[in-house]
């Protein structure tokens, strides 16, 4: 519901509005615009990755089928995994974070709006390029983690792996950029009074996720560049004939790769921690324990990576150490599960589509979690590593543990973002189809793994006992697809015809519910002063004492910067408005990277464009330069 027009409101709106038209769309730097783009783009990649999976399941529905050629299947599973891990999961959760975090902490935008825009353009270019390569038949085909020597110059001479490396590099840049921004925004721009122990748990999760990205992505950046160098200029990092080692790739990749799955899981757990208190209509139980558990997960996740390498011949003693850490990481997750359990038990739950997805998430995460405990034992893993048992495990924890909370979050915040309510009935249908479908697809895979079916096989022989379960799994995939499709239908129909949502349709407790749906371009009319963890439950909307008055005379965008621990007001920061330079910087970087595959002259050309764009970006506005 739009607020009554006041002079302050009109002035703020004009300062913070995005420029109109297509050019305005290109130059936008508002966090909500950027966040929505991330979410929408990531959803497209979810659908693309899902379609790839459906075709893969068709190929495996029976033994010896020829829906796909062997090479085609290998490309499909590589594209599927890479899409879901790099182009869907992390960007989707980042997008939700970019949209919600400033609203939850009571500020008007993120700390580096142009960097935000740059991150999105880099991501979009990465995803589009990846799929264009696929359409032209040069897709990567070595799995989403592309082990050398297979992915090296000797055995994958085409351009497919090069496109994969380029996509990875761009995604990393986007993720790193978004993380730095999240950390600085959360540290510096919280509303007065929002000390760290009053931070919403979703923001805690985003903060820890961002720190994890800062430490986990650089090893991936390096190792993917090393692969590119091996492929393009003849280095020997992974070539045993010249002193290199294929295991170097595995170590560096998994030093990134294991934290990566917790980078995906943590914000999802954070979403759940926002929905459960509102559904149970009481504050979160064990807030401090949950915050500590989130931090503990972040740290512990860096000590597990060797469990991806149990079958490589490493010393058993070392593997047992990593196994112990792997088992222990269950505890911070269990702490959070019990905190939700207690909150629900003590509360008075209102069943909504969002909360239904939370219940589904809990069941699926626990099921996936116990198979995780099983495979963290080296001896167990020596039988099921690289089999369908592992495929079952990680789909339960990622689809159950991350995608279900994402959908729960979409149901929960759709009214805030669009101003309309999603259909509850369609939401329930969608949930049951996806939930039941997931079990039909992935539960039989546990058995297939035990029956000896390895991963990444384009076909299998009849008579091994795998036929029936593969067929069941394929049928389940279509049930799941129907569930996702129902969500899409729900979103489109509700966007057009859904009931109008007020500011706060669920009776929420955090600051995003204190502004209109959708929020105005400046987020809050006045910056709130926060006195507790559940600001909306602890003061009624009518009492606005203690709220900061904004200074409408300022012709530029400004945000309040507060101190790190207690969020005491410190100073005012001026933020930039719309600008085209982040797009040019992304384009320049893209030309430089992709150019390395086409013609070497494109590399300095692209670099030049990027440098000029960065200088123009950072150059002070005219009014700040002395005459």
């Amino acid at each position, binding site marked *: 519901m739009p607020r009554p027009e006041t002079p302050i409101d009109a002035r703020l709106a004009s300062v913070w509005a995005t420029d109109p038209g297509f050019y305005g769309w290109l130059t936008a730097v508002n966090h909500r615009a950027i966040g929505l783009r991330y979410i929408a783009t990531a959803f497209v990649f979810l659908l693309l990755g899902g379609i790839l999976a459906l075709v893969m399941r068709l190929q495996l529905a029976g033994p010896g089928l020829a829906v796909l050629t062997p090479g085609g299947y290998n490309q499909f599973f590589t594209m599927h995994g890479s899409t879901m891990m790099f182009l869907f999961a992390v960007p989707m959760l980042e997008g939700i974070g970019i949209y919600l975090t400033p609203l939850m902490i009571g500020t008007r935008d993120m700390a580096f709006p142009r960097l935000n825009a740059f991150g999105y353009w880099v991501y979009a270019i990465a995803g589009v390029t990846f799929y264009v390569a696929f359409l032209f038949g040069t897709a990567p085909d070595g799995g989403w983690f592309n082990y050398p020597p297979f992915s090296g110059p000797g055995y994958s001479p085409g351009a497919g792996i090069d496109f994969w490396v380029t996509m990875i590099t761009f995604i990393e840049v986007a993720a790193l950029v978004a993380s730095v921004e999240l950390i600085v925004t959360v540290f510096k721009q919280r509303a007065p009074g929002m000390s760290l122990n009053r931070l919403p748990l979703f923001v805690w999760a985003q903060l820890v996720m961002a720190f994890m990205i800062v430490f986990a992505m650089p090893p991936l950046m390096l190792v993917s560049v090393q692969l590119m160098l091996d492929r393009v200029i003849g280095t020997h990092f992974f070539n045993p004939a010249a002193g290199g080692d294929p295991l170097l790739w595995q170590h560096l990749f998994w030093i990134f790769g294991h934290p990566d799955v917790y980078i995906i899981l943590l914000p999802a757990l954070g979403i759940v921690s926002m929905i459960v208190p509102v559904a149970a209509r009481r504050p979160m139980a064990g807030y401090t324990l949950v915050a500590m558990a989130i931090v503990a997960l972040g740290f512990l996740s860096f000590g597990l990576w060797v469990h991806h390498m149990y*079958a490589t011949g490493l010393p058993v003693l070392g593997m047992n150490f990593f196994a112990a850490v792997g088992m222990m990481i269950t505890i911070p997750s*269990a*702490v959070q599960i019990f905190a939700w359990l207690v909150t629900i*038990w003590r509360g008075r739950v209102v069943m909504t589509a969002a909360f239904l997805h939370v219940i589904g998430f809990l069941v699926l995460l626990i099921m996936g979690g116990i198979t995780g405990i099983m495979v963290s034992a080296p001896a167990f893993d*020596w039988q099921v590593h690289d089999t369908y048992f592992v495929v079952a495990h990680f789909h339960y924890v990622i689809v159950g543990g991350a995608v279900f909370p994402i959908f729960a979050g979409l149901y929960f915040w759709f009214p805030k973002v669009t101003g309309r309510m999603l259909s509850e009935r369609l939401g329930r249908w969608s949930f049951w189809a996806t939930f039941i479908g997931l079990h039909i697809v992935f539960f039989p895979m546990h058995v297939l793994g*035990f029956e000896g079916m390895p991963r990444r096989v384009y076909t299998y022989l009849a008579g091994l006992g795998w036929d029936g379960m593969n067929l069941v799994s394929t049928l389940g995939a279509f049930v799941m697809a129907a569930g996702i499709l129902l969500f899409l239908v729900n979103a489109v129909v509700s966007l057009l015809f859904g009931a109008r949502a007020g500011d706060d349709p669920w009776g929420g407790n955090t600051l995003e519910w204190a502004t209109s749906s959708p929020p105005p371009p400046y987020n809050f009319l006045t910056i709130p002063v926060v006195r507790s963890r559940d600001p909306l439950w602890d003061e009624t909307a009518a009492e606005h004492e203690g709220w900061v008055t904004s200074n409408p005379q300022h012709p530029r965008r400004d945000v309040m910067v507060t101190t790190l621990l207690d969020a005491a007001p410190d100073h005012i920061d001026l933020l930039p408005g719309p600008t085209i330079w982040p797009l040019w910087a992304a384009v320049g970087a893209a030309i430089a990277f992709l150019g390395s595959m086409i013609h070497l002259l494109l590399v300095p050309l692209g670099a030049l464009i990027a440098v000029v764009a960065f200088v123009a970006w950072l150059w002070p506005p005219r009014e700040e330069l002395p005459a």
Partner: protein
Amino acid sequence: MTARMAAVAAVAVAVAGCGGVQSVLAPAGPGASRISELVWILMVGTIVPAAVVIALILYAVFRGRRGGGGPRVGDTRLIVLGGAVLPGLILLTFSALSARYSAEVAVPPSPPAFTVEVTGHQYWWEAKYPDHGVVTANEIHVPVGQTVRLHLRASDVIHSFWVPRLHGKMDQTPGHTNVWWIQATEPGVFRGQCAEFCGLQHALMALLVIAQPPAEFDAWIARQRQPAPAPADPIRERGRQVFVEAGCAHCHAIQGGHVPRFTGSVGPDLTHLGSRRTLAAATIENSRELLRAFVVDPHVFKPGVRMPATRLPAEQLDALLAYLATLQ
């Protein structure tokens, strides 16, 4: 297409018997059997608490909808007990068990009787018995009840040696030699498959481990040590010439001096081709018809293997196959 599928199916059935030929939970050796103990312990030990927690959650949801109440114990105590202490104790136990089982199955249960060097190639298995002077491919014989040491290597990309009914898997990484072991406690045919994605035909890179009573194993070794016999009649001699002229000898070795050696191990050693039950890394049955079809065009069965199609006039093809039939 139908004939190929039938051929492909036939081998699996012949080997499978009643199914479960590649099953982790049907152990036939001490490695797999100890691991399957741990499998059952961990499964039961995690499923039971998980079911309890899920039941509690569902109870809390439905109880909570009616409102009021909740456990009488304080929040912190409940969360720490249920989320940290109890899981911690359970997991500590599992860690200790896991460490014990893993350390145990990593080493042979008895001193190995001999060593087999298994080298993974795209898409077949080279097997050498240095203690016996035997070279073969895709089919490994072992004596029942004796431990066999394995030296696992790879010639090109990463592969992984896995025979589920006998033991867990171990990777074959270029530049490394991984030492592993297997032992079968009953005679039988055990199927294994490459367990690390290695390229186009990773899916059809399988092998057979055949466990025999020691006397039969010794007999097998004795036959495998024999070089190939010289061609006994003009047709077979013609076939031997075709083998060289058509280029087969460039990739496949045949011991005995009748066929010149080139690189040797691009493709499997064929000296005792006829003694093997399957062709193309346990993809198809080893019959005259299927061997003929495979030689003419391997890509019908395994598209993308390095072996090219062989177009020969019928007379030469017949002679070649007659010669190959002597390689028992």
